[in-house]
């Protein structure tokens, strides 16, 4: 199967080929790839693609996947502290 047909991010329709092209261009961390490819910016905020992308970054940089940081998930998807809701306070 061609890399173009392997969809990594379904929200924003990003293929494995797109990820490899961007790695080649020099974007080597999740936050940078996110800015160029929109991975993690769709409705699921990277719930499905982030671990796949993490592995691709690790392979490319020849490091252990555990050392690769993924993007920051943002409200409304991130968990919410009950106390913040009760007190109508800001997240931190």
């Amino acid at each position, binding site marked *: 199967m061609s890399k173009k047909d392997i969809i990594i991010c379904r929200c924003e329709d990003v293929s494995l080929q797109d990820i490899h092209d961007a790695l080649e*261009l020099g*974007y080597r*961390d999740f*936050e*940078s790839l996110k*800015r*160029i490819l*929109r991975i993690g*910016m*769709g*409705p699921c*905020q990277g719930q499905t693609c982030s671990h796949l992308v993490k592995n691709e970054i690790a392979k490319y940089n020849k490091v252990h996947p555990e050392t690769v940081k993924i993007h920051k998930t*943002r*409200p*409304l*998807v991130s968990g919410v502290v009950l106390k*913040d*809701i009760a007190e*109508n*306070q*800001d*997240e*931190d």
Partner: protein
Amino acid sequence: MKTKAYIVIIGAGISGLSIAYNLAKKGVKDIIVVDKSHFLAGATARCGAGVRQQWATELNCILAKKSIEFFSHANETLNYHRDIEFKQGGYLILSSSIAEDEQFAKNVKLQNSLGIPTRHLSKEEALEIVPHLNPNSFTSATFCHTDGHVNPFLMSEAYYLAAQKLGVDFFFFNEVKEIILEEGLIQKVITDKVEIDTHKVVNAAGGYSQEIGQMVGLDIPVYSENHEILVTERTKDMLGPMVMSFSKNIYCQQVPHGSILMGRNNPKALHNHDISSSWRFLDEMAKTVNHILPEVAKQRVIRTWGGSYNISPDFQPIISDTQVSNFFIACGFSGHGFMFAPITGELLSQIILGEELEAYAKDLHISRFDNMENIDREHSVV
């Protein structure tokens, strides 16, 4: 590690990128851009990326008009392999009081005198442009059809790749810790990873430009403030122009991708580096958009985030040399530095190379704040 540069640019946001590109295009060699984080960690990747020429001060109008001219041919000029997604759907700015309408009449006059094609519209004319506006939420409007939006990530990438091709070096994940001066002259920039020998520095550090100024003993009169923003899921085409109201505190725009961005300011925001998301923002934003654009309020919000506005005393940028020899600044964009980036890079490169400046550009100098009474303050801001 030790290295050498003709000039070091601190900050790889849209300002630093444009400055680097403009210098390199003029033949400057040995340019190093340092950034403390990954690609676009600052305000540039967090902004609404609206580009408008409808300002209340002459200076902001001129800066915006020149920058929009650049955006219209940026793909070709920068030889970019993707598309910066320049959308000219216009900006529709709503007025909701007699006083605001009177100010808008003055603004339109000023803008027209500078060649900006803004029109003053009645409520009915505005409703022809955006039929689903709540007619009870405004009284009149102004519209400039050449205003619009540019994709901030791709515009930045276009500059970044063009600058790289011209030989600019980028050091990401390098936080500037210290700038060494000897007898008032810059000698070195020290990051947490390298020491760079250089005699010229550009401060394009966005929200941290005050702190970078302190490193050379310069007190730049700017502060940072959190501004929050949200995005909806992709939806059908429903909003041609950016819709904005200063008095109701909202800007709202659908981008070519299909999602809708909206933001407002928090008058109680503190002067600091906070960029967190708050429940209050979501609550107030939802109420405001539901009042003005009820159809847009039916869309699902998928993400909220925050970013720093770097604010100057007159809400106009500082693009300038300084009393510290060979220390240049481009900061204080007050929430509109994305749209000004093309002219920022052009002007600062002229200043650095000692070229003759056009008269208007002299008003961007930091020395205008020596006497605060004379400043021409911009009021058309959210």
